[in-house]
């Protein structure tokens, strides 16, 4: 795969929706392209997060630690970005990622992503907008959940 195909994939990631192509190419270029085989860990819950993963191919299971051991709570698939929280604020990984099948992943390191944000404010804006949307949705979900809980 070349930069061009990676840019195509990045374009499908909602977070990078409004960002123009040259900047996506730059993002792709400074990221590391890594492969994971089935069952390999991308990251573990609780460890320090120093990069975000953009899944180009394949999918990963999201596991969280429970008293009964690790439990699968979700699956992330192609064209999604995971672990971006860790590179925006210094929090430990909130979940473990395990490759569900053979994966092709772009890894963006925290430092480089922050440099990119500093360099191109419109990317920051786009990231902010996406996060705000997500927050808004989470808030609404929470409100719904509360209403549901109090109604019950």
């Amino acid at each position: 795969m070349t930069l061009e195909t990676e840019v195509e994939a990045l374009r499908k990631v909602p977070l990078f929706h409004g960002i123009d192509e040259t900047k996506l190419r730059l993002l792709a270029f400074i990221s590391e392209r890594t492969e994971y085989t089935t069952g390999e860990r991308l990251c573990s819950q609780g460890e320090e997060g120093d990069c975000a993963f953009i899944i180009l191919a394949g999918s990963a299971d999201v596991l969280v630690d429970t008293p009964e051991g690790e439990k699968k709570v979700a699956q992330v698939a192609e064209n999604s970005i995971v672990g971006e929280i860790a590179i925006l604020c210094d929090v430990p990984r909130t979940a473990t990622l395990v490759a569900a099948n053979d994966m092709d992943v772009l890894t963006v390191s925290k430092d480089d992503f922050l440099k990119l944000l500093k360099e191109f404010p419109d990317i920051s804006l786009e990231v902010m907008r996406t996060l705000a949307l997500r927050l808004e949705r989470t808030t609404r979900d929470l409100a719904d959940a509360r209403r549901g809980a109090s109604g019950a």
Partner: protein
Amino acid sequence: MEKGLFGFIWKYSARQQIFILMVTVLTYPVVYFLLELPKLIVNDAVQGDNFPRNVFGFDFDQIPYLVLLCFTFLGLVVVSNGLKFYLNIYKGRLGERMLRRLRFELFQRVLRFRLPHFRKVSSGEIIPMITSEVEDVGGYIGEAFALPAYQGGMLIVQLGFIFMQDPLLGLAAVSSYPIQGYVIPMLQKKVILLSRKRVKNVRVIADKVGESITGVAEIHANDAAAWHSADISDRLYENFKIRYEIFNRKFLIKFLNNFMNQLTPFFFYLIGGYLVIQGNLSIGALLAVIAAYKDLAGPWKLLLSFYQMTADVSVKYQTVVENFDPPDIYDTERLTADGEVKLDGDVKFDRVSFSGGAAGQEVMDISLTVPAGSSSAIVGPDGSGRSEVLQLAAGLVSASSGKVLIGDHDLDKLTDSTLGREIAYVGGAVHVWTGTIRDNLYYGLRHRPLVPPERSAEENKKYKRRVNEANQTRNPVYDLAAEWNDFAAAGVNNDAELDEKALELLETVRLDNDIYRLGLQSRFDPSMNDAFAEKILNVRKSLAGRIANEPKLSGLVELWNRDSFNASASLAENLFFAVPSDPEITMDQVPDLKEVKTFLSETGFDQKLQQIGLKIAETMLELFANVSGDSGLLGAYSFINQDELPEFERIVRIAKSGQQRPGLTDADRSRLTGLAFKLVPARHRLGVMTDDLRDEVIEARKRFLESVVKRGDSFVAFDPDVYLPPLTIEDNLLFGRARVDRRDARRRIDNVIRTIVEETGLRHPIIYAGFGYHVGVSGSRLSAGQRRRIALVRGLLKNAKITILDDIATGLTEDDKTLRSALRQVLSEKTFLYGTSNAEIAAEFDQRFVLDQGRITDKG
């Protein structure tokens, strides 16, 4: 040391000076005849009559007479120039020898300074004294006696001639000399003072520059660059002012000289003219006198400039030498004596006082006894006199009153040859020498050359010459090429055992892992140790076997394989399937190698690589065009750094425009090729590596092997069965590349390598290879902790009867605690003095002496 320059010259070169003088006098008649002959040829041979002439009993007609005279002239030309040539060489050699003697003497004096003296002098001042300031002395020495004698003689002869013609004219000729002889030295005196001032000022500048280099981190950390700039600039201005003064006076002297010299003819014309008109002097005599006076000007001028040079050089000599004569300097004996006294017995301080010249560096009236073979702690905070007591015990400084004894020997009466061998001292501020780790570890065993090297007849001749020169200049004749390591002192028999012993001690101080890592990164020459190379190749094979069998590992590396493309390696490595034999050659230099150029153009790869390079450059320009240089993205990821960007912009523009003129230069093409060479396809996914291209690259390898690798020795091919000297030991073990597209591949594969190395017993040889690691300037490529540990091993390796450690491993951590008990273990039979500021640590030792403000406050 001789205080004056002439004292020094006469003492060490009187015989040579007399010889020079004699040869100079010998040239005198030759030169005289050389000047007389042309007159004889013209007047006698060409214009003369009444031939034949009788010369030495032979009759000569006019033509043979002319020929005879001309050939005599030619002969004299050869003789006079030959003599001059011989004399110049002789003087030059004498000057160089004297300079060597002087410089060595100065250096030896530096070694003879007592330690406290170094608080007053700095290296920044001493270095220019020994190197540049005495340089002029060498050129001067050859001329010191000959020039004044020769030119003075000429002057007297010419003057005599004038006086013989007419005493009055003679007086006129010398009339200006008394004035010149009075005024010029007076002016010169001022110049001498100024030169002294200048020399001292330049020393301060050198010192300040040196200090700025040592403290450069402080300058940046405190934003003090402006202050230092102002300081230096001020000193430079001072220098300018002094120099300007000197110029003014120097040229004033010149002006006066010239004026006086030309004033004299004025008297000649006036007085001589008067005498001729009065009929008291013939016109011919006047003309002869004027001609003779012209000849006077030459020697007179030379004598004056010689006088100025003498003044200048003497001042330089004095200004240097006065710094090397402190009253309390050690005897030369202390450095050069070979006698070694065995220091058995207790370390005893008998009412010892010492003052380092500042508060907190005093020791007052201390008496103590450390029994032989025991371990004692000297406890006290910095400034309590602890370090001074330990230095006194090591014989590094001398007591101002009282005595430091070991057994019955007063340390002050012993020489380095005893102190430096019987006592091991490692202080808080250690020094690691520029060189390899091995050099540093065995430094404490290199006291004297022990086993002379074997030399061929040819080498022996060269060596003899070296010794002869050393003897002539009172330099030491120690042979640098000899075996210096004192195996017996370390308790071993040969190099291999010494290495083992050093490793044992490195393990004790726990530096072995660090050196193992350095060893993995180092290169070694397989011709020195076949067996080791063989073992590495075996590990390479078993590693390859494991990689092939374990799917987990095989995903982590791409091994070198002649028939497949290695996407984790650079395009250059893939194309050549070889590496330059000289590891110093960088990727940017490779395209300019002659054989590479030929290979590329023969295979047509030059065009292809330039296209790839162009594509890379274009992409980089496009990607990074809007990125600011200080974001750090450019340097870390691009092939091109910020400074090169405009250059590549130009190259791309020219290439794109397709114009023939100006077109790309060869250098531009090399740059593009260099860019392509650096491409690592798996990392830089730029889409330039097509499958066809991969096949072509693999195809071209064979050709490179045949046409370049096999024909010359500038490249070494990747071969699974051969050790590759240009690669590090680690790369030789792996023989491939950790995949860049697998997370943590490097670290994971390193762990596998480490286990295999341990299993096969290769760890020790790799550590020995690490001994060859170059530590950088004063050990700058090692951490402070590593430096301290190396100095510690150096001290332990000496196997001395008394070991003194100050401020070493004084932490309360478990690590330091184990290290201390290991040290006590190693030194169990020896006298061991340990300095620390911590009472808790001191409790670990047999005996304790607590110091406070230079006095012992507690013993236990």
